[in-house]
């Protein structure tokens, strides 16, 4: 157990010094396993993990959904989504911000990445909000927070990776993200309603659109709806596996981009390479994470943590509260998927030992990862906004995020105390 604690210390040290995270985990996990078990078994174990990850059809789900995302980004869906949302919501006070949230939710339904959602929606929504004299804080905060939904609403790279690491059903995880995703959209819109009631000047109403415009705008987002329904419907009714959904999503998004005349040979090639690039990055980390996981398992640390927590005689819910508080704190400095990779080996056995459902915990974990993306000092979605709005100080963006952060805590509490919000849909699934 001591070995694993030292291992974690070394891991954090070399990773924070800038050594690639996946390779850090591979080196520390391999060395630790070697100390406990001998070098020959360790070399074999690493070979096995490399082949198990890189020649494993079940992991092909990741590149295929990444490819779908790459095509979707180029299909210029975001404009149509925003226009449709704006037609329906724009005339309310704070309506453009509400429309941004709705469009983020729609974009999240076809993209698996939070940063992509934030970056894409920023380009579309911020100029319009600025035109209508929205406060920079509200405009930037809305996009930064709205973007986080990319990994909660399926498809989601974070849920795929959690599923791979914990061997939980990716289809069930996708299903579990839907209702919490809808709750997020509602909660964020409520936040905008409240802040614009208190400070009406930060979000003036936009133009009111007539009914014809509204329906026409809505009709143009059929592609998003079709892709989402095809993928999620297909998975939930057992028509195809998540893997197959990835293939269908990727080819569907390609067809979609071609129909919208956004595809050229060059863009096609770029999209493929972008997906290869990201896949390779993530696969290296998954290999490292699994090697580290075996070291941590062998060291007996997870079992020791479970036993120790049992001696405290706290109720499982109290332990869960402590875990979540820890995650929110950790999320201030460690971002996104790194949180999942670094904490799964310890926390998942503990959470399972306490009797919690691991599908539910996947959703909870993704929600704390979402929070990490917008909390200071290091919040990736905030940095995306900053790079797109260089004239807006970081402080202003974080100020704009604060009300959404409060909403995040509320919806986290909802899902924690009412697990059915996450588990009802996957339990309805045919498989």
């Amino acid at each position: 157990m001591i070995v694993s604690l030292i291992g974690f210390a070394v891991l954090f040290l070399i990773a924070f010094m800038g050594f690639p995270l996946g390779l850090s985990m591979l080196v520390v996990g391999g060395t630790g396993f070697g100390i406990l078990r001998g070098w020959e078994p360790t070399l074999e174990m690493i070979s096995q993990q490399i082949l198990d990850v890189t020649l494993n059809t079940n992991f092909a789900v990741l590149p295929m959904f990444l490819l779908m995302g790459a095509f979707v980004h180029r299909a210029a869906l975001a404009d149509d989504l925003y226009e449709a949302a704006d037609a329906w919501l724009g005339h309310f006070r704070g309506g453009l911000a509400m429309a941004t949230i709705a469009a983020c939710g729609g974009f999240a339904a076809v993209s698996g990445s939070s940063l992509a959602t934030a970056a894409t929606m920023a380009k579309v929504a911020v100029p319009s909000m600025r035109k209508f004299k929205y406060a920079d804080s509200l405009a930037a905060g809305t996009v930064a927070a709205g973007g986080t939904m990319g990994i909660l609403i399926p498809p989601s790279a974070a849920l795929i990776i959690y599923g791979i690491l914990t061997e939980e059903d990716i289809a069930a995880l996708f299903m579990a993200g839907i209702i919490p995703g809808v709750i997020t959209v509602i909660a964020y819109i409520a936040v905008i309603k409240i802040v614009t009631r208190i400070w009406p000047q930060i979000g003036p109403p936009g133009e009111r659109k007539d009914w014809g415009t509204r329906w026409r705008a809505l009709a143009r987002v059929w592609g998003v709806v079709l892709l989402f329904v095809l993928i999620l419907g297909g998975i939930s009714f057992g028509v195809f596996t998540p893997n197959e959904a990835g293939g269908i999503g990727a080819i569907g998004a390609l067809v979609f981009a071609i129909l919208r005349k956004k595809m050229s040979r060059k863009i096609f090639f770029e999209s493929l390479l972008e997906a290869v690039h990201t896949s390779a990055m993530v696969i290296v980390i998954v290999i490292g994470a699994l090697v580290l996981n075996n070291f941590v398992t062998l060291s007996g640390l997870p079992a020791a943590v479970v036993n120790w927590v049992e001696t405290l005689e706290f109720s499982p819910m109290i332990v869960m509260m402590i875990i979540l508080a820890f995650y929110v704190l950790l999320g201030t400095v460690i971002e996104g998927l790194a949180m999942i990779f670094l904490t799964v080996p310890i926390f998942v056995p503990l959470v399972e030992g306490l009797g919690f459902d691991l599908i539910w915990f996947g959703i909870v974990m993704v929600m704390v990862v979402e929070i990490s993306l917008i909390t200071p000092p290091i919040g990736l979605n905030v940095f995306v906004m900053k790079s797109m709005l260089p004239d807006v100080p970081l402080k202003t963006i974080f100020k704009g995020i604060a009300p959404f952060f409060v909403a995040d805590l509320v919806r986290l509490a909802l899902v924690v105390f009412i697990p059915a919000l996450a588990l009802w849909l996957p339990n309805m699934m045919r498989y």
Partner: protein
Amino acid sequence: TAPTPAKAATELLFNVFVPPKHPFNTGMFIPWAKDVMRVTEGRVKVSFTTATLAPPPKQWNMISKGIADVAMLANIFERNRLTMNVIGDLPFLGDSAVHRGVALWRTHKKFFEKANEYKGVKLLGLWTISGAHLFHGKKPIRAVSDLNKEKMWVIAGLPNKMIASLGAVVVSVPGVKMFNVVSKGIVNGKVTSPYGMNAFKTMPYIKHITKVPGGVSSVTFSLLLNKKKWDSMSKKDQELVMSVSGETIARNAGKKTDQLDAKALKMAKAKGITYETASPAFVKELKEKLAFASKGWVANAAKKGVDGNAALAYYRQQVAAQMK
């Protein structure tokens, strides 16, 4: 790490992928480890992993490469390599897991060992679960025609092929998903041991049980040990380890599952689930329709230079001898 005893000790890392309360763990793994340490007077030590170092289908590779030293293998995962053990899946070979398992080990020693299927690892023992019954949620299965187009859960491999040959629509999702397919009516029945009926909380969806004498099929397992570790042990310790392995493994694992079978059947009866034994006519029909399974196995055995008919006769004889 614990201090090493004076004499050079062999430390065996036992990889466990079943939950701690699984009957194989409590009934066999843990007693085996205690026995090994006792008979070798601590020269061979066994420790267990708290979680698996490789997924269940990769256990063979994990042991042959020495990532862990001891592990259980569900033989179905090495179906290209291990064709002889499929004898244990054949129908009408015995009700009790103890009888089937002990007979399997004895048959292995007498007929299969020379086929050298376990090349690269040391085989410590073989075991099986009891003979499978027919379970259904809507009607009692009394004839082969009752299975026609019925959606049934069956484990993958030969059992799957056999039940499919009876006209049923077979679904072979892993055990952990069994609750889903049963509770949602994707399947209406299952072919498994009585313990298997209860193991995944599916008993509430079962209304009728048909016992086929000797079982329609079963599932077999191996306990593997890393070859290098085995070779590094003294001749004497090897003998001592085998004295508490082999048949003992089949017996211990079988005893536990037989107990759980009885418990599950008692619960089922208390809940008003009907229980009947297949009629002679039904059994005759089954024997005719499933004859291909044994024939196919005998043909496979011939490919490995094993007299399959003799082995089958010997297996039956070993089961019968235990029933006396």
